[in-house]
């Protein structure tokens, strides 16, 4: 085990921590953990595991600590991402007429959900937020269209209503979160 005072914490963990922490606390918190990491390493104590555990705890708090609406939005993003993955796979397996176009649309919606989650998680800069808003408008339009189409169709498809409603809710929350809420200090 290396026992020098210039050892660096696991790079990807540190990088993720710095991205997630609010800008005003990035330097001092990352500095504290780095200092303790080096002290532990110099004493021959397990430092990487300690650092990763503390960073994971801090990242977890940041993810949950951005308010209930943010947590709900992230939950919707996770649900629609999984739903879009499932729909894409099912379209590929069942191969009903016109499936390639639907696979592309499901894939794009999934990418939009993932992108929205990343933008919200990292409290991204304005350019990315516009992209998130565009993805939200697209998801909202598809969600509402799915519900309306299903209501008019001869066969009721419950999953389409659930996913359509989730996409619409996600779009509304994203518009509120990225469009009307001031960019927060806390990621």
């Amino acid at each position, binding site marked *: 085990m290396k026992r020098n005072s210039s050892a*660096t914490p696991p790079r990807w963990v540190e990088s993720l921590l710095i991205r997630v922490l609010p800008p005003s606390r990035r330097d001092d*918190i990352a500095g*504290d*953990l780095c*200092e303790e990491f080096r*002290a532990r390493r110099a004493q021959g104590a397990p430092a990487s595991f300690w650092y990763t555990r503390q960073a994971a*705890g*801090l990242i977890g*708090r940041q993810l949950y*600590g951005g308010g209930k609406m943010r947590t709900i939005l992230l939950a919707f993003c996770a649900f629609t991402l999984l739903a879009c993955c499932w729909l894409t796979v099912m379209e590929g397996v069942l191969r009903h007429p016109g499936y390639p176009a639907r696979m592309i649309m499901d894939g794009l919606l999934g990418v939009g959900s993932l992108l929205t989650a990343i933008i919200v998680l990292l409290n991204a800069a304005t350019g990315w937020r516009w992209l998130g808003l565009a993805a939200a408008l697209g998801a909202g339009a598809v969600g509402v269209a799915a519900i309306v189409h299903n209501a008019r169709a001869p066969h009721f498809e419950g999953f389409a209503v659930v996913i359509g409603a989730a996409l619409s809710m996600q779009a509304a929350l994203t518009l509120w979160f990225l469009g009307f809420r001031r960019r927060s200090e806390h990621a």
Partner: protein
Amino acid sequence: MAEILGAFEQAVLLTALRLGKGAYGRAILREMGEALGRDVAAGAVYATLDRLEEKAYVASRLGEGTPERGGRPRRYFRVTASGIRALNEAKTTLETLWRTVSWPAGGRA
């Protein structure tokens, strides 16, 4: 009377008070770990310090960066007069409550 401080808030404030001018994140984390005899979660300490700062029970300022921190500055915390008052109130309240029951609570342990 203001809201009573939680046990962890009291622990953080007491540690910062004990450390005095040397109270910065890592020092508080270390000192608390030694006093409580367990590894303390950094996230819990920083969240508590943020909350205490919002309540104006602590004030903070940034210091100089040092090489062992990769040039990053330390954030020093100072317990304010309101913080000390809140600590005293919490102690008085708990002592008053403890006096209303026999020791150990619930009979012989």
